[in-house]
C-alpha cells in the first residue's frame, strides 16, 4: 500500500507559490506592464532559470515570523508592566534610541519601498517574489522598532516625530541620501517613457 506524502517538499512548495502564482497577461502587453524591465538594455533570456536559493514562501514566512513576534511582544509587555524605562543603566541609552529611530528605522521603511518598486517591475516570478519577501521583512522591521520604542515615547521627549526629523537633521543626510537615490534610480522607478520616440 502506498501512502500519500503528507507534506510538499520545499522545492515543490516554492514552485507552487512562486511560478504557479504568476500568469501570462492577455489584456495588456507584457512590455506595457513591466516598462522598466528592458529600459537599461539588459536582456533576460529566461526568467524561469532564476530561482531563489533561500526557498522562502509566504506560508512559512508568516508562520515562523509570527512565532518570533509573539516572543518579542511578550518582552515589550513585560518591559512596560515593570516600568523598564526607569531602570536603564545609562541615560545616554535613550539618546541612542532617538538616533536609531530617526536614522535607521526610516531607512528600513525606505528599503521596503525600494524592494516593492523593484519587484513590481520584474516580469519573472522568482525575482518578483524574492523582492516581495525582502519588502515585507523590511516593513516588519520598521514596525517592530516603532512598537518597541513607543513605550519610551510615553515617558521621554524627542521620539514623537521621527519621520519629520529624518528629513531635517543634518547628520542623517548621508544615509537618507543613499536610500533616496537607491529608491529613485531610473531603472527601478521611472515613469513609463521608455524611448525617444515615446509620445507620453
Amino acid at each position: 500500500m502506498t501512502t500519500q506524502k503528507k507534506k510538499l517538499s520545499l522545492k515543490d512548495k516554492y514552485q507552487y507559490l512562486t511560478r504557479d502564482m504568476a500568469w501570462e497577461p492577455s489584456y495588456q502587453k507584457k512590455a506595457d506592464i513591466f516598462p522598466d524591465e528592458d529600459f537599461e538594455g539588459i536582456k533576460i533570456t529566461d526568467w524561469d532559470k532564476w530561482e531563489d536559493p533561500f526557498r522562502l514562501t509566504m506560508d512559512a514566512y508568516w508562520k515562523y515570523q509570527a512565532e518570533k513576534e509573539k516572543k518579542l511582544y511578550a518582552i515589550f509587555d513585560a518591559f512596560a508592566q515593570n516600568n523598564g524605562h526607569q531602570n536603564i543603566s545609562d541615560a545616554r541609552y535613550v539618546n541612542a534610541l532617538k538616533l536609531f529611530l530617526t536614522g535607521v528605522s526610516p531607512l528600513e521603511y525606505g528599503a521596503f519601498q525600494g524592494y516593492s518598486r523593484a519587484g513590481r517591475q520584474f516580469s519573472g516570478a522568482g525575482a518578483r517574489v524574492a523582492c516581495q519577501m525582502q519588502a515585507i521583512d523590511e516593513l516588519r522591521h520598521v514596525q517592530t522598532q516603532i512598537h518597541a520604542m513607543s513605550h519610551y515615547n510615553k515617558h521621554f521627549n524627542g521620539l514623537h516625530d521621527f519621520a519629520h526629523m529624518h528629513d531635517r537633521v543634518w547628520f542623517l543626510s548621508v544615509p537618507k541620501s543613499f536610500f533616496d537615490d537607491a529608491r529613485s534610480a531610473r531603472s527601478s522607478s521611472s515613469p513609463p517613457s521608455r524611448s525617444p520616440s515615446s509620445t507620453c
Partner: protein
Amino acid sequence: MKQLAFIVFQDNDNARYLVDAITQDNPHAEVQYQPAMIRIQAEKRLEIRRATVEEMIGREWDVQEMLIDVISIGGNVAEDDDSFVLEWKN
C-alpha cells in the same frame, strides 16, 4: 583574505541544540558566545543538517523552523528539506 561563512543565533534553548548539531557536522567551525547571541563561523562553508538537528533535539525538525532563532547569516544559501548550506564558492 579569509572568506567566512557564518550564522548567528539568539542564545536560547533552541539554539543550544542547533549549535551542538552544527559543530558536530562542521568540525572546522568556530563558535563565539557573545552577549545574548551565538555566532558560528567557518572558512568557506557551513552546513546545517536536519538529521543531526533532529537527533540532538529529539523530535522532528523543519529546516525553516530555524528562522525563529536566526539573527544573521553570511554566505550564499542553498536550502532544501534536508539541509541548509552557507557557502562562498570562489
